[in-house]
């Protein structure tokens, strides 16, 4: 069976533009509109999660000063904050937002392969968000089980939200998984089959590689969460004992029998660890492109970067039990997972070296996106190093469930991807909106965010060493914590409030730039990849006007010696490059 490629059928199809308001902005099947719907909604729930975190910090920094926050609501805030940030913000934003916007543009196609499915995906995602938020308002409130939702406590008395809250959380996750799968089928198919002429896989920008690999991970890992959600709903509602052991709760013998909480942990982390890379890999890809563009240099070791992404993707499926070292596992088992965990650090470190080497002797322009991208390198190294500590069983045992772990994962999958999110939004904002953002406000936003993040998370490492447990409503008075720990907590809270308020600068910037920003020139950063080469800025429906682009080179021809311009777009054929070039070998110039 042979199939005629998209490029050869382009003119058979008529691209009728949507004409009503509804089909253009609401029920749109245009990947760019869907991307903005996905991204906007993700950021909106993200703000909810941010507010929750400030509420938690208020309690931790100034215990019992705020009547609004009691132990129950504290646990609900912890849980909703974590789940929203990881799943509903970062996953949705990277795959649904950036994936949707960039994949068709960077691959040189007019849209996703299945636009209708794409539209369904964003609306199903919307539904999952509604269900999630609804859980705040049902009797008993949202679940307070922690984002890991470990049974038995997520289903037994004493935990907030055990009647309706937990069910809504699980249903919402199930609905989210359906949305992510619909989106994922589109991204995979589009990358594989809908590229324009000349776009080999190895000519794709790293952004596409990162998002593509993360999508594969999402498709294979999310089922684990779905399986655990289904079985937990059954345990809760029809009395099965998949996860729930025989137990006495609040003086009552529950009707459960011999269920296995450890089974849940396996399933959860089989999803949970790949999930951190579902968030990290797109960030790796996006940041590579931002760095190369603003350093005016080709990305160092492109092939190695691609292989590292693939290796990390593969390995991320065999490290999950490093989250379960304290569950009483067989030591050989622990040894195996510690080894794989440390192995995965190798390709990760390779990527970090390559980013730094990309900057080396580059013509670095410290514009706002670049600041955020360089900030990412700092925070990521920081979080990655503490990961190496925790990957070793003997070091993890005392540190598990302390603030050290909180510091680790916030550095590595909180702050770092968020810095990339900002880098990418600032980088692509001129393309998406056709307007320039305000540089000064952007720089203020960066420095407050970057330094604020350090002021919040660096001290947490020390708290962790001293044994401050995570997920505690209040520490009370203990012998092992000096007074200074409490002062530190207060200082973290103040920093966190400043950090949160600094994000207003971002929204203000976006808002005034959309209204009064300078008009953006086409390809304002002098980039090489296809998304900047559309006939209109911002690109119109169908992206490419009459003719699809044709690609003649990879996406990293920056500062090639002997050429008059310091970048050569992917569409320029070898014959049209001003002066003869020698494969972009970098001489010391």
């Amino acid at each position, binding site marked *: *069976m042979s*199939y005629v*490629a*998209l*490029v*050869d059928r382009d003119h058979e199809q008529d691209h009728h533009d949507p004409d009503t308001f509804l089909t253009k902005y609401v029920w749109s099947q245009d990947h760019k509109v869907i991307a903005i719907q996905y991204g906007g909604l993700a950021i909106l729930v993200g703000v909810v999660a941010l507010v929750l975190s400030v509420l938690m910090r208020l309690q931790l920094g100034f215990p019992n000063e705020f009547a609004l926050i009691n132990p129950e609501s504290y646990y609900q805030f912890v849980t909703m904050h974590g789940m929203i940030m990881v799943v509903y913000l970062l996953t949705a934003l990277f795959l649904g937002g950036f994936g949707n916007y960039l994949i068709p543009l960077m*691959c040189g196609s007019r849209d996703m392969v*299945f636009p209708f499915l794409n539209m369904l995906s964003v609306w199903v995602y919307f539904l999952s968000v509604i269900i999630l938020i609804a859980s705040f308002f049902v009797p008993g409130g949202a679940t307070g089980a922690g984002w890991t939702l470990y049974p038995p406590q997520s289903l037994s008395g004493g935990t907030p939200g055990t009647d309706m809250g937990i069910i809504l959380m699980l249903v919402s996750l199930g609905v989210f998984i359906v949305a992510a*799968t619909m989106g994922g*089928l*589109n991204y*995979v*198919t589009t990358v*594989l*089959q809908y590229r*324009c*002429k*000349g*776009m*080999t*896989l*190895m*000519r794709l920008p790293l952004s596409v590689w990162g998002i593509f690999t993360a999508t*594969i991970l999402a*498709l*294979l*890992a999310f*089922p*684990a969460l*779905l*399986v655990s959600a289904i*079985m937990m709903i*059954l345990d809760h509602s*029809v*009395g*099965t*004992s*998949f996860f729930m052991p025989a137990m006495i709760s609040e003086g009552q013998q529950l009707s459960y*029998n*011999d*269920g296995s909480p450890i*089974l849940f942990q396996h*399933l959860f982390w*089989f999803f949970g660890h790949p999930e951190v890379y579902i968030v990290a890999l797109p960030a790796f890809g996006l940041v590579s492109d931002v760095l190369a563009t603003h350093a005016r240099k080709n990305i160092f070791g492109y*092939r190695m970067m*691609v*292989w590292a992404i*693939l290796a990390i*993707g*593969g390995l991320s*499926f*065999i490290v999950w039990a490093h989250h379960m070292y304290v569950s009483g596992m067989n030591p050989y088992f622990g040894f195996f997972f510690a080894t794989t965990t440390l192995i995965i650090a190798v390709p990760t470190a390779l990527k970090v070296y390559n980013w730094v080497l990309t900057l080396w002797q580059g013509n670095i322009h410290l514009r706002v996106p670049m600041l955020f991208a360089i900030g990412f390198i700092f925070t990521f190294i920081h979080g990655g190093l503490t990961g190496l500590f925790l990957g070793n069983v003997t070091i993890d045992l005392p540190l598990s469930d302390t603030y050290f772990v909180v510091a680790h994962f916030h550095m590595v999958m909180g702050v770092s991807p968020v810095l990339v999110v900002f880098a990418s939004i600032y980088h692509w904002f001129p393309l998406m909106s056709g307007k320039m953002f305000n540089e000064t406000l952007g720089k203020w936003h960066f420095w407050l965010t970057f330094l604020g993040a350090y002021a919040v998370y660096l001290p947490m490492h020390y708290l962790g060493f001293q044994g401050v447990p995570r997920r505690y409503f209040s520490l009370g008075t203990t012998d092992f914590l000096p007074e200074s720990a409490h002062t530190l907590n207060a200082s973290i809270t103040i920093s966190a409030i400043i950090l949160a308020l600094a994000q207003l600068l971002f929204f203000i910037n976006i808002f005034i730039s959309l209204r009064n920003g300078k008009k953006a020139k086409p390809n304002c950063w002098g980039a090489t990849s296809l998304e900047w080469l559309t006939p209109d800025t911002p690109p119109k429906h169908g992206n490419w006007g009459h003719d699809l682009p*044709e*690609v*003649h*080179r990879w996406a*990293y*021809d920056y500062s090639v010696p002997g050429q008059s311009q310091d970048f050569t777009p992917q569409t320029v*054929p070898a014959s049209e490059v001003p002066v003869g070039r020698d*494969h972009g070998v970098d001489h010391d110039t």
Partner: protein
Amino acid sequence: MTITLIFLACIMATVIFWLLRQTFNIQPWVSDEVADEVTGMSLDLKPQAIALTTFMAVATSLFALFASAYSLRMEMPDWRPLNEPMILWINSFFLVLASIAYQWSRAKVASTDIGSKKLVIGLGIAGVFSILFIFGQLSAWQELNSKGLYVSSNPAVAFFYVFTAMHGIHLLGGLYVWARSLAKIYQNQDLRIVRTSVELCTIYWHFMLLVWLLLFGLMIAT
């Protein structure tokens, strides 16, 4: 978890091996006229076929994880093996027949034109047997129910209900596409569209049969 690991390792290994082959020995920074002529399709397949394959990989992951959960849960002391109802054998037979009928329709759609009676008959048979399978599964549920084996009675029973329900839902999804292919035939749509639909459904039906046989095998073996 071993089952899952083996399945996922296979899928990941295939994907990664294939991707590495695409990327190995290529120097994308060198200008390359052969690459300039590449069509932008990595595989000589319709996009729908890729989407279906990907979806089957997702479903494989889902069922493999259920199977792993089954094998882990089995080790707990309260596990009582279930005597699977005999009707499951008949149901399995129905599903085999549905698969055969689909295979036959696929041969027909490749060789005849759209109005072909044979195609409609083939599809009809496939659909009827699939529906019979689903009713058969429901009556297995009823049988367990009447014996007092409810979903909360024992983990083996609970898994039985969950497995059959999940498999049934996937088959119902297939039947929705099946109904749409029939509708397309009645609307006299382009033969190419119908052909894709029937070809892909055939693959999906074989896949659903395989999944069912593995789940069924797992349950009777334990």
